[in-house]
C-alpha cells in the first residue's frame, strides 16, 4: 500500500509540471490561459523575473515532490513502523537559510526592474532640456468603468478643451507613453496583461505608469482589485496604433468630443 501512496504523491509534481507546460503551449483546453504576448518594450524585464521565479519555484516544487515520494517508498526489508524524530537542527537551518538566501537574491536582483517600471519615468528632450515625459492621458477609475481624459488641442490638462472617452484608450506605437492614474471612488487596480503593467489605484493619490508598445492591436484592460459588485465587468480596451493612424484617430475623436453641433454620426 505504501507504494501506491508514494506513487500518488509523485503524481503531484508530474501533473503540475504537465499542466504548466500544457498551458504555456496553449493547447486545448488550456488555450489562452498563459500570459499573452508581451508588447511592451519595458515589459521584458518583468517577463524575465517571472520566468526566473517560475524556474526556481518549479525546481523546488519538483524536488520536494520527488523527495516526499522517495521517503515514502518502503525500504527493502525495512521495518514498517514509523520512527519518532524530535527535530533536526541541521535540516531546519538548511530549509530556512536556502529560501531566505533566494529571497534576498531576488530582492536585490529585481531592484532594476522595480526602478525601471515604477520610479524612472522615461525622459524626453525638449528645446535641449531633459524632462520627464508628461502624462498624455489621465486615467480615472470609477465603479465600474474607466474614463480616459485627454488634454485636448492645447496639450494641457484642466483647460476647457479637455475631453473624455469612456472604455477605450488609444496610444501610438513605438513611443514612450505615460498615464496618470487616479480613482474617483474606491480602490481599483489598472492592469494591462499584454503590457505587463499593473498599478493599484488609491483614491486621493496620483500615480504614473509608463510603457512603450511595439505592436499595434487591441489589448485588454482589467481592474484587478475587487472594487464592488460590478468589478467583474470593469474592463476597457487599449488600442495601440501606428503613429499615422493614431493621429487620425486623435483628430477625429477631438472633433467628436468637442462637437458644437448635432450630427447623426457617432
Amino acid at each position: 500500500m505504501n507504494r501506491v501512496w508514494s506513487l500518488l504523491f509523485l503524481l503531484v509534481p508530474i501533473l503540475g509540471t504537465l499542466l504548466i507546460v500544457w498551458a504555456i503551449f496553449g493547447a486545448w483546453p488550456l488555450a489562452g490561459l498563459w500570459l499573452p504576448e508581451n508588447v511592451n518594450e519595458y515589459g521584458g524585464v518583468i517577463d524575465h523575473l517571472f520566468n526566473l521565479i517560475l524556474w526556481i519555484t518549479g525546481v523546488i516544487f519538483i524536488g520536494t515532490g520527488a523527495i516526499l515520494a522517495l521517503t515514502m517508498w518502503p525500504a527493502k526489508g525495512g521495518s514498517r513502523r514509523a520512527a519518532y524524530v524530535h527535530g533536526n537542527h541541521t535540516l531546519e537551518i538548511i530549509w530556512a537559510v536556502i529560501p531566505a538566501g533566494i529571497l534576498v537574491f531576488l530582492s536585490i536582483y529585481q531592484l532594476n526592474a522595480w526602478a525601471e517600471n515604477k520610479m524612472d519615468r522615461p525622459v524626453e528632450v525638449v528645446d535641449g532640456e531633459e524632462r520627464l515625459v508628461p502624462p498624455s492621458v489621465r486615467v480615472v477609475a470609477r465603479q465600474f468603468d474607466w474614463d480616459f481624459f485627454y488634454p485636448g488641442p492645447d496639450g494641457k490638462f484642466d483647460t476647457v478643451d479637455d475631453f473624455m472617452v469612456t472604455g477605450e484608450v488609444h496610444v501610438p506605437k513605438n513611443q514612450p507613453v505615460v498615464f496618470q492614474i487616479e480613482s474617483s471612488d474606491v480602490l481599483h487596480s489598472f492592469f494591462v496583461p499584454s503590457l505587463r503593467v499593473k498599478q493599484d489605484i488609491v483614491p486621493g493619490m496620483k500615480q504614473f505608469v509608463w510603457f512603450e508598445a511595439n505592436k499595434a492591436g487591441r489589448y485588454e484592460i482589467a481592474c484587478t482589485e475587487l472594487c464592488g459588485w460590478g468589478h467583474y465587468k470593469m474592463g476597457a480596451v487599449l488600442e495601440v496604433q501606428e503613429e499615422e493612424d493614431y493621429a487620425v484617430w486623435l483628430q477625429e475623436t477631438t472633433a467628436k468630443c468637442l462637437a458644437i453641433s448635432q450630427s447623426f454620426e457617432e
Partner: protein
Amino acid sequence: MRYTGSLLLTLIVCVAGCTPPPEFRQNAVEVKKLELQTLGEEEQFAAGQLEDIGSFLTAAFGTPDEPDFPGLVEDDPEVNLVTQEHLVSAAGPVASLEDGEAQGLYREHCVHCHGISGDGSGPTSAFLNPYPRDFRLGKFKYKSTPLNVPPTQEDLRRILKNGIPNTAMPSFRRLPDEEIDALVDYVKYLTIRGRTERDLLSILAEDPDPALDFIASEEQFEAADEAIEAAVESGDEEPYPPLFGPNDVVDEVVFPQVDQWFEAVDSMTEVPQRPVELSPGHPDRDMWIARGKDLFFSTGACVQCHGKLALGDGQVDDYDDWTKDWMKTLGIDPAETERINEFVGLGAMPPRNLIPRNLRLGNYRGGSRPVDLYLRIKNGIEGTPMPAAAVSLTSDDIWSLVEYVRQLPNESLSQPAVQQPVNERAPR
C-alpha cells in the same frame, strides 16, 4: 461511482430546465396608485379587467423568452421600429449560437439593474445611486429631442456606447454595433410595452365599471355583437359593447407611440453655431463667459438649484418624476414610512432626493460635448426638476451659459487639495 458524472449532469440540466421561464411583472405600483385615486381605500379593479390587460400585453408583446411586437412587417424591415431579429437576440436566456452570435443580451448585460420588465428594479438596483432607469414611464433624460418626445436611435446608442459617467451605467463600447442596436431595440420594446400597460390602466381608471368587458377577444367580440343584435330584436335592454375590440388597442394605444418614436428624429433640437467669440483663445471669450455667469444668477435661474457656487446645493429636497409619479400624485409624505413601504413592497424604489449636479466636477452624465451641455440647458432634463431654458434666452445666451459652466471645473475653487504624486521625481 460510475454514475456520478451523468447524475450530476442530469441534475444540472434539470435545475436549469426546471426553472420556470421569467415573466413580465404587472405594474403593481401603477395599479395601486390608480385604485387609490379613482376607487378609494380597500377597493380594487375587477380582476377580469386587469387580466384583460395582461392577456393583451402577452398577445401583443409576447414574453421575456419569446418577444413579439405589434405590426411588424417581415418583408420590409425599414418600416419597423424594432426588428424581430434584434428582439430575439436581445431577449431570452444568455447563450451563443453555433456561429458565435450572442443571444440573451439583455439578460447578460442589463437585467440585473433594469429588471426583466424594464422597471429598473433588478437585484442590484437597491445598491445604486441614482437608481437604474424604469423604462415604463417612457421618459429619457439624455437626448437630442425636446421634452415629451422620445429619444432618437442615435441618442440611445450614444448612451450605451459611452455609459453615463458618475452613475453605475457602464459603457458597452466593446460590444459590436449589431449587439448595441439589438439592445436599443429591446429598450424601445420594453418602453412601449410598459407605457401601453400604463395607458391601458389609465383608460380603465377613467371608467372602472366592473360590468364592462375591457378588452374583448375575437370570440368575445363576436358574441357581444350577437348579444346586442339579439337584444335589439327582442327589445331587451342592450348590453354594453366591449370597450376595445381585438385590434383596437394596437391601433389606438400602441401605434401612436410607435409613430412618436419614428418622428422623434424630425423633432431634434436645432443647435445654432457657437458664437466665435466663445471659441477657446478668442479675446472676447472672457466677456462672453461673464455674461453666462450673469445669466446663471438671473434669467437662467440656474442658481436656484445648482447653488451660488454651482456645487449643486441650491435645493436638495426635490424628487425625480419616477418617484413623484406615485408619491406626489397620491400626496404621500416621505415620512409616512408605512405608506411608503406599501409601495416599495409593490416594486417602487424607496424615495430618495434628487440632488442637483455639482457643476464643478466636470463630469456630465448626458455627455461632455459642448453640444450636450447646450441641449441639457436648452431642453432641460426630462423626468427631473431641471427645466427647459426660458424662451427669452437666445442661443447666444445659452452658449454663454454652456461655456461658463464648462470652465467651472477649471477654476481654482474646483481643484482638489494638491495631491501627493507618488512616483514622480526629477529625471536622473
